């Protein structure tokens, strides 16, 4: 039991970085960006092909993955701001282009990292004494650092302008700021984080596959919305933390669906249904409690 919670937490935090990327576009920039289904794989593809073919350091490849993802975000941004393609379509086009590009990067649809030195081996060597907790500790450190860097970034001048661009673009234009540039920057940051998450997940899973990005936008949005409905705050620290909590809840729901779904009579094929039902319960219970509390007060 404890072990599956540890694993759910590891995955929740690793995918949480991608969810933070989705958070930037969806909540801050108000730009529904579908590039992420492709840029997640780009991160995994770059990281694993550099690890396998060129023997790069497993930490350095994560930075390169971030840069590659950021480039993908820039392309979506330019399609939207310079060529005037609508936000949704710009994201879709990038996502489709990235499918082919990712295949090019990898050279084949699947790269195995089972016999490669990855961060997992490095961490097990470094914090080996912690046993089962070593990976969780590492993942927590990485994810919280990303979160705090983001929080600090959004306190800088550029960060504040980025937030304002999403809130009230006209006001920002009136201040003499080029909002197009801000959008491109926001998309770059978002997709960089998504690709970083992809690079981490590939090393964690032991392989990169061209199909591994399918649903990144869905799980990312799920995390953003679950977190947002549980913690309502305008403070950046709480907003980003809520995204990670949302991601943790989603991955725990998957684990619980896997473990207990069949106990209550569900089959293996019902997994996605059970996962969603657990998420619904996680969302409804706090809201229901709130309502009950209000009712008691009004009595």
């Amino acid at each position, binding site marked *: 039991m404890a*072990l599956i919670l540890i694993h759910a937490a590891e995955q929740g935090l690793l995918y949480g970085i991608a969810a933070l990327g989705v958070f930037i576009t969806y909540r801050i920039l108000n730009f529904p960006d579908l590039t992420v289904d492709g840029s997640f794989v780009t991160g995994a593809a770059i990281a694993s092909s550099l690890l396998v073919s060129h023997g790069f350091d497993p930490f350095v490849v994560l930075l390169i993955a971030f840069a590659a993802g950021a480039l993908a975000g820039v392309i979506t941004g330019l399609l939207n701001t310079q060529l005037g393609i609508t936000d949704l379509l710009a994201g879709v086009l990038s996502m489709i282009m990235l499918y082919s590009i990712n295949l090019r990067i990898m050279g084949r649809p699947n790269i*195995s990292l089972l016999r490669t030195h990855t961060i997992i081996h490095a961490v097990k060597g470094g914090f080996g004494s912690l046993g089962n907790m070593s990976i969780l500790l590492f993942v927590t450190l990485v994810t919280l650092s990303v979160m705090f860097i983001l929080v600090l970034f959004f306190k800088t001048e550029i960060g504040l302008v980025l937030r304002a661009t999403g809130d009230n673009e006209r006001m920002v234009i009136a201040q003499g700021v080029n909002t197009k540039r801000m959008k491109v920057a926001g998309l770059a940051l978002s997709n960089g984080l998504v690709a970083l998450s992809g690079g981490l997940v590939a090393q964690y899973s*032991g*392989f990169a596959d061209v199909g591994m990005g399918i649903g990144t936008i869905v799980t990312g949005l799920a995390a953003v919305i679950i977190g947002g409905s549980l913690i309502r705050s305008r403070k950046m620290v709480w907003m980003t933390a809520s995204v990670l909590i949302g991601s943790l809840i989603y991955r725990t729901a*998957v684990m619980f669906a*896997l473990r207990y779904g069949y106990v209550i009579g569900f089959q293996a*094929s019902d*997994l996605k249904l059970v996962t969603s039902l657990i998420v619904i319960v996680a969302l409804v219970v706090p809201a229901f409690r709130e309502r009950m509390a209000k009712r008691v007060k009004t009595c």
Partner: protein
Amino acid sequence: MKRVLLAVIVGVVLLSMSVLVASGTPIKIGICQIVEHPALDAVRQGVIDSLTAAGYVEGTDITYLLANAQGDMGTAVSIAQDFKSQNVDLVVAIATPTAQAAAQVFNGTDTPVIYAAVTDPVIAGLVLDADDPSENENVTGTSDLIPVASDIALLKELSPQIKKIGIVYNPGEANSVVLTDLAVTAADNLGVTIVRAVADTSANVQVAAQSLIGRVDAFYVTTDNTIVSAIASVISAAEEGRIPFLVADPTSLGSGVTLATGFDYYQHGLLTGTVVQQVISGKKPNEIPVTYQSKTLVVLDLDAAAKIGLTFPQSVIDKASKIFYGGAIWEQAK
């Protein structure tokens, strides 16, 4: 063939039964597959049926944890982790990503991971060497590699006019890319050219197949999950172009393909079951090399051939074990 295989399985396992069934607690086997798909479902059923036929009664001798990642690679990792925390005695992982996830999660443990339906386990990183299992650690399994070269030769045997063969495949499927590359090499040796058309989803198969009409003399589809799911699209393109179509899936016989080769994935499951039994009976994964599906079939559809004006040469008819004619399947005694 099924019966013979079952008889062999029963024989092998009667020997091993004494070791494990006597021990009392049921063996816990986790079976994980990447997605719902007729071929992969058949593998799972084959594994279970093989163990049942060998005398392992579900509930008393053996329990199964069945899981399906429903196409999500992150879930494939979660499933392997769930199996690990439930202390399964053995994992059966069906298809490449599931096998890689299980190998990663169970790395460094004693729990055997038996993969199935992986075309090239060496490229997939599951084992270091196909023939020498000594470096395998806890992983071994079965490969569904099909004899691509003999398929190309068979197409050529249909008619000497076949010079260009069109392959529709999904560049996102690891298994399919391996087979398509093998086909190109084999075709080179036989003086035939391969023309590729790609479809990344089953919805795009129609367009990909139609793009080949007039440019190729025959269609060939390997064990590509995406294309086989949309086989009707390739069949209609082949009929439109009045050219023969070979698919490496004998269960497609009667659907309109001209001829089919390979094996039924249920047989692949039975074969995987025999590997599972070897491991249960005490053999270590590092003593078992990659097991290949050996017996492949040739099946022909005379009705479909008549539609495109093709007559099978006698040499091809002699190879067939089943023939579809007059709307029914006829077994050919061999």
